[in-house]
C-alpha cells in the first residue's frame, strides 16, 4: 500500500454519521445488557430454586440451546422467520435488542451459577446456623457476593456483546459497522473508514476494561 493516498477528510465530512452509529451501538448494547442481565438473573433464580423439577430441566435445556445458537443466526431468524412463522413483525432495532438480550442471558446465568457453585458450603451453612432461610441466604448474601466477584467476568461478556453488536449490520441496523459500510459506498475509502471504526472501538472498550480492573482491585481480588 506504499502508493496509497490517505484522505482523512472523511472524518470531518461524516462525523455526524459516525456519531449516530456510535450512539446506536451504545443504545443497543446498553439495552441488551440490562434486559439480558435481568433475564439471566431470572433464569438463575428458577434454576437454583425451581418449584418443580421439570422446570429446572426445561430451563437447563433452554440455556444449552441459547448458548449453542450464534448471535448472527438469532438475529436473522428473529427478523426474517418470525413474520413467516408467527405473523410477528418487529423493527430491526427491536430485533437486535431482543436477540442480543436472549444471547446474553444464558451467559449471565451460567457465569453467576458457576460462581454460586464455587462458593464453599460453609458460607451457606453459616447462614443456616444463624436461622436465616436458605432463599434469603442465596438472595441477600450469596448472589451479591457472587455478582461482585463475577463482575469482571460479566463486564468482559458485556464488552464482547458490544463488539458483537456490529453483526446487526446484516439486518441494516445503523450501528457503527453498517454506518461505516454506507460511508465506504459513498467515498470508496475503506481503509480510512475502517481505521476510524477501529479507533472508535478502542476508545469505547478500553475505558470499560479499565473500569472492570478497578472493580477487581477495589474488591481486593487483585493487588495493585
Amino acid at each position: 500500500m506504499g502508493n496509497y493516498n490517505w484522505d482523512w477528510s472523511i472524518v470531518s465530512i461524516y462525523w455526524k454519521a459516525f456519531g449516530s452509529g456510535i450512539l446506536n451501538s451504545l443504545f443497543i448494547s446498553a439495552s441488551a445488557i440490562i434486559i439480558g442481565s435481568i433475564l439471566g438473573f431470572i433464569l438463575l433464580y428458577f434454576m437454583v430454586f425451581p418449584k418443580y423439577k421439570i422446570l429446572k430441566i426445561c430451563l437447563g435445556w433452554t440455556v444449552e440451546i441459547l448458548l449453542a445458537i450464534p448471535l448472527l443466526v438469532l438475529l436473522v431468524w428473529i427478523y426474517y422467520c418470525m413474520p413467516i412463522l408467527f405473523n410477528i413483525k418487529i423493527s430491526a432495532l427491536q430485533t437486535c435488542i431482543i436477540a442480543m438480550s436472549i444471547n446474553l442471558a444464558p451467559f449471565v446465568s451460567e457465569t453467576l451459577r458457576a460462581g454460586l457453585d464455587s462458593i464453599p458450603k460453609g458460607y451457606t451453612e453459616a447462614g443456616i446456623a444463624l436461622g436465616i432461610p436458605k432463599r434469603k441466604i442465596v438472595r441477600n448474601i450469596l448472589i451479591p457476593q457472587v455478582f461482585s466477584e463475577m463482575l469482571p467476568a460479566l463486564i468482559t461478556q458485556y464488552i464482547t456483546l458490544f463488539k458483537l453488536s456490529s453483526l446487526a449490520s446484516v439486518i441494516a441496523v445503523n450501528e457503527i459497522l453498517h454506518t461505516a459500510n454506507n460511508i465506504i459506498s459513498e467515498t470508496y475509502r475503506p481503509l480510512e473508514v475502517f481505521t476510524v471504526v477501529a479507533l472508535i472501538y478502542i476508545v469505547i472498550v478500553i475505558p470499560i476494561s479499565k473500569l472492570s480492573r478497578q472493580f477487581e482491585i477495589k474488591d481486593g481480588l487483585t493487588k495493585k
Partner: protein
Amino acid sequence: MKTKSITAALLLFVSLLIFNSCNNTVDNSKSESTFEKIKREKVMNVGYVVYAPIVKKDPNSGQVSGHFVDAMKYIADEMGVKVIFHEADWSTFSAGLQSKRYDVCIAPTYSTIKRSLAVSFTEPIIYIGSSAIIKKSDVAKFKSLSDLNKKEVTIAVVQGEGNHEFAKRELPNATLKVLSTSNMVLPMVEVASKNADVALTDYYTAKKFIETNSNLTIISQEPFEVLPIGWSVRNDDIELINFLNNAIQYLESTGKMEKWEAQYDAHWIKQKIEYTTK
C-alpha cells in the same frame, strides 16, 4: 409472591416490547394479492441495498436517493400511495422479500436464471458489466481474462455475487478467495494490500475505487459479463410485476429514467430502443 409478581411484570414487559411496535401484521390471506394490498393500504414497502448511484444513502442525514429511488417515488406518487423504504443487506435482501417485510426490492441485483427460481425480476432497467482489477505492476502479466485462469492466480470475489458465479464458471483453474462480506469494495482492497492478484467486481465500483487508488487499474476498458438489472418481487406477485413492467416502460419511453440517471451522473449500459413512424 413478590418474585412471582416481578416475573409476571417482566414477562408482560417483554411481551409488550415484542408486540407494541408491530407495524404491520403479515397478511396471510391468499385471496388478496400484494398489488391489491398496496392499493388498499395505500402503502408500498420497498426494500433497498445501498449501491451508489442507483441507491444512495447520505450517511449523515440518512436520506435515501438515487435514480431507482426517484423512479419508485414517482411510481408511488402516480399510484397515490405512500412509499416506505426499508434498508437491507446484500446477504439478506431476498429474505426480506420472502418474509414480506417489503413488497418490492430495488436492490440492483443481476437477474440470473438461478435467482429467478427464488424471486421474479422486472424487465431489465439497466445492464451492468464486470471488471477485473489488478495492480499496475501486473499489467504485462494480465492482458486478458484468459490470463487469469491459472492456479497461481488468486482472484478475490464477494461470496454469492454475480462475479463469484462467473469466476467459478469461466475461470475454474484460478484460486478463488471468496470474501463473506456485503462490502463490494473489499475484493479490491485485497488486491491493493497484495493479498490477491485480481479482484472481480462490477464496472462502476471498480472505476470509482481506481480513482482513489492510483496503483490499481482494470484489465480492459470494456466490461465483460454484462448482465441485466431489474427490480425483484415474490414469485407469485404476477399483478405487481406486470404493473411495475408497465411503469418501467413508461418511464423509459418518456425519458424520465434517463433524466434521473443523468442527475446522478450515472452512465449505465442500456438497450437502445429506437422509435419510428411510417
